[in-house]
């Protein structure tokens, strides 16, 4: 075999070894074809960005750090919550959802719902996804599952079906709970599924929203994902924060035919850094001449 052919064979072997499945987004496997990544693994180009992160461009993992490291997902878990809610055959946007005392008193990010108030399920879902409202989240969970425990079981069943093998959920709203963990890669998987649901995609894209309780109290809020409306092409997804998880965000941006996904867990500087990482991911598609 000549040197040339040996080289060709070696190259072919490398190509075969590196070519990942082409499943868009969900798998986000590695593939040759990226100037910023050495062979074998995506380059950790942003070690200071987050405890764990990944950037996928057009369905291929481009940069990553600890993409499979289990970490608390914070409110990013609500994407799975939304998927599970919409999976429920009884789901109805117009369903009347009452706010229990427990829901009204839930800790963390709230919409400010009051005990005994009621609102449409669709509006509660908007608050859950846009404002990351735990009171709306818990009200929905209680309405459709009866209890947190039952809903969490559904979440874990759904997560397993999605192939989120390193994830376990303990609270439907993402509050820190014993054993609750996920990974950047697993969360990307559920995010891809969530984006495929128009009821979710249309809500996470809102920079701001306004809903009303059934007795007419109006509640306006802005998206907790500060990238929406501020960074070109960002079409939404979810932010999250808990003491254990740190600042987290999943963002998806579309410019022309190119799509970038970003997942950051434990990101001390998430908004600015995310902005820069998204810009960098799109940079190769915007050739600049001197």
């Amino acid at each position, binding site marked *: 075999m000549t040197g040339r052919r040996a080289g060709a064979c070696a190259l072919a072997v490398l190509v075969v070894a590196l070519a990942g499945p082409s499943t868009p987004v969900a798998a986000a496997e590695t593939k040759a074809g990226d*100037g910023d990544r050495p062979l074998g693994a995506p380059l950790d180009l*942003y070690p200071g*960005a987050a405890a764990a992160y990944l950037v996928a461009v057009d369905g291929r993992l481009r940069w990553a750090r600890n993409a499979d490291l289990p970490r608390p997902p914070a409110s990013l878990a609500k994407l799975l919550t939304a998927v599970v809610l919409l999976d429920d055959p009884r789901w109805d946007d117009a369903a009347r959802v009452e706010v229990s005392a427990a829901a009204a008193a839930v800790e963390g990010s709230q919409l400010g719902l009051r005990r005994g108030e009621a609102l449409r399920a669709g509006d509660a879902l908007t608050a859950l996804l846009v404002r990351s409202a735990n009171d709306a989240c818990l009200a929905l969970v209680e309405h459709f599952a009866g209890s947190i425990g039952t809903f969490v079981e559904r979440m874990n069943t759904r997560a397993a079906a999605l192939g989120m093998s390193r994830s376990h959920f303990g609270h439907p709203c993402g509050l820190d709970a014993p054993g609750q963990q996920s990974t950047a890669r697993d969360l990307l998987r559920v995010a891809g599924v969530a984006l495929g649901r128009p009821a979710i995609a249309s809500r996470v894209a809102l920079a701001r929203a306004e809903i009303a309780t059934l007795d007419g109290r109006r509640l306006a809020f802005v998206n907790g994902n500060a990238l929406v409306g501020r960074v070109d092409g960002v079409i939404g997804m979810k932010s999250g*924060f808990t003491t254990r998880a*740190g600042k987290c965000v999943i963002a998806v941006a579309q410019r022309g035919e190119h799509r970038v996904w970003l997942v950051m867990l434990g*990101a001390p500087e998430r908004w*600015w850094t995310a902005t820069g990482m998204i810009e960098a991911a799109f940079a190769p598609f915007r050739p600049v001449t001197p």
Partner: protein
Amino acid sequence: MNARLRSLCLAALLPLVVSQAAFAQAPTPGDKWRTTMSMEMEGMKMPGISTEICAPKNATPEPQQQENCTISNRKRVGNTESFDMVCSGKEPMTARMEMTQESPTRWRGKMQMKSKDGDTTMSYSGEKLPGECDASEMERKMNKMMADGDAAAAKQCLESAKTGQSIFFIGEPVMCKDAASVKAYCSFAQTSSGYNALARTQRGGARVYKGAEAAQYRTILASTGKLCSFSPETVRTQYCSTARSKEDWTFFAEECPELAKPLAKAQCAGRNFTTPVDPPFVKFCGAWSAGGASIGGGGAAGGAATGAAAGADGGSAAGGAAGSETVKVGEGEDPQAATQKATPASTAKDAVLKGKEALKGLFGR
């Protein structure tokens, strides 16, 4: 079994497929043969393997030359031919081979080898089968496979060139040398995004890897410049001079720190992400922040360090006010300083301290 032994086993199985058929493209009349090979190694006997092959009519068994091997003492006594083989290199070995043509339709042979793996004896035989065949068919198929492989490799080289996979073009061994892909790689390397991609790979690889690998990564731009006959610094300076006006913010922030740093100080320092900033500077400040994160490794020591209240992802929104965190640009290292200082062994603590130092330098506080 080492690679040479495997190769010799294959050679032993195919002693009749000789040069007469090599490179033949037209059908070559041939006879069908069944060859059987068995092997004994270090007292272990392996069962015989039979293979049907097609050999050119009237072909005689010939020893197949192996890489790094010399054949000597070749003799023919009656119907028996024998020779010695000595191989050097990484897998040195010696071998003695005998082949006996027992009749026009039958032959047998034996090869005794000594290598670092021990002694191996291979016995083989051939028996002519009824019927005819095309002796060049296999060669044609192999040639086609090789041609297809070359075409696929060329295509992959071109793709690798267009996406700046430097590893295929520089370093050892160089896998892509064809003019078209080298030209494409050189063109890519001299675009702003191409230069930026290679520079990132250089920085990232030098940080992640150690020793010779790190050294290879550290010279990506220099090696590319040498391959493509351009000066990386000239290209960088050229793009830096226009990056701001062309709003090529990622390049500007990451590759032109001497220009970006004052702009970051003026436009980004102390800015809250959610307060209005001129749109171009949102992108620039993000690129500057990510640039720091990309090199320094500062400030990502885990979420617990943030110290905020559990579940407080912004606070209550009742009444329309959205809670927003106070986020300031600039955490992380000064890219230029970090380029000089960062090492793979840097701890998160070191990185945070460096980031703080860089902040002081950048924002004067």
